[in-house]
């Protein structure tokens, strides 16, 4: 048991490292995700033209930007490998669960990178003074974990689709709604410094755990 767990972890680490190397060399996916986020934030900021935007709307906009940029960036998690015919090789040499969690970890890291890139730009362009930075970071991190879990399984589902245009966000959105709704409320509280419901954070964390567990169970049936 411990030996297989250790080798599982080694496989996960190898896959994350491999995807990171390929991501560095083939920057297109990553660049597209960042530029998508930048374009979305710029267009929102330009259209509001520096006028005051309510914190509630701001926090919703931030999550919408993250959701669609993430969709652009992670929908090809499995599909890129399927197109390159490397997915069957990977599936032969690595355990299914190691592939799932390796990909999930990679997706989480790229989403953290995305958020680290876009958040300061967002805060500066909309002139947001964050009152509770700790809450903001915790909420973003908790949200991204769930988004990675659901996103990775959804990316595995869409790989076999013959028509892919737009399919990924359509599938992902309803599944991640239980994360977005409390996350938007918490982000608003972080912007304004208002009192917040800690139970919302618990809801996100619980749903994260359920998504990770469900992805792990369901992936074996694919």
């Amino acid at each position, binding site marked *: 048991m411990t030996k297989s767990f250790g080798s599982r972890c080694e496989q996960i680490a190898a896959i994350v490292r*491999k995807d990171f190397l390929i991501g560095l060399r083939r920057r297109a996916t990553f660049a597209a995700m960042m530029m998508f986020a930048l374009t979305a934030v710029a267009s929102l900021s330009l259209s509001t033209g520096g006028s005051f935007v309510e914190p509630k709307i701001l926090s919703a906009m931030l999550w919408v930007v993250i959701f669609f940029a993430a969709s652009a960036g992670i929908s090809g998690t499995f599909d890129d490998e399927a197109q390159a015919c*490397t997915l069957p090789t990977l599936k032969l*040499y690595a355990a299914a669960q190691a592939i799932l969690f390796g990909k999930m970890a990679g997706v989480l890291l790229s989403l953290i990178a995305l958020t680290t890139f876009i958040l300061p730009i967002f805060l500066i362009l909309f002139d947001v003074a964050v009152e509770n930075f700790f809450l903001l970071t915790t909420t973003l991190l908790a949200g991204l974990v769930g988004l990675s879990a659901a996103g990775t399984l959804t990316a595995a589902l869409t790989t076999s689709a013959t028509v892919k245009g737009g399919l990924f966000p359509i599938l992902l959105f309803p599944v991640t709604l239980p994360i977005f709704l409390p996350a938007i409320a918490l982000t608003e509280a972080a912007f304004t410094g208002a009192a917040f419901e800690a139970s919302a954070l618990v809801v996100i964390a619980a749903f994260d755990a359920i998504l990770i567990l469900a992805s792990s169970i369901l992936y074996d049936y694919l």
Partner: protein
Amino acid sequence: MIAFDDVTLSFGRRVLFDNVTLNLRGGRVIGITGANGAGKSTFLKLAGKILQPDSGSVTLPAYKTIAAVSPEMKIYDDLTATENLKFFSRLRGKALTAEKLFELGSRVGLDMKTFGDARAGTFSTGMRQRLKFAVLLSVDADIWLLDEPTANLDDDGREKIFSEVQAAKSGKIILLATNDKAEVEICDEVIRLPL
């Protein structure tokens, strides 16, 4: 021994395998031949449990590892030859030393000094095929699934791979799907799939 028990598989209305029961024994090279579309590659996938049958079962010996060379399984174009080898062997819990890398390269006729740090995407088809075979050798698996392993290879490459297969066959189960005469010749036993 790989045991097929009442295996049935169909694609749409086409029944490819209909209640197939057979045993594939180790220690020899078993050739799988048949016309295009007879299901040679599919047979290998069933044998390796890469594909599940519609009904019936395929049983592999416990704790046996599988490796394959197949046109449907490519290596990473964006990784170098060395990185590809290290990645796949690490997935199987094997750390490759520099000496081992050079040895693997020479066994398949790929000079790792010159090509080790080049991306696989820059390789010719034949060189990529040699690298795929090196990956197979590096993981030291118990079951080899070879789908047209020497297609695109020159005579030197063929000879090297044939001798590796011959040297490795005792103690392994080797399945070789092919219609190539030279590849069929190295098989100890041939299963011809009907269309």
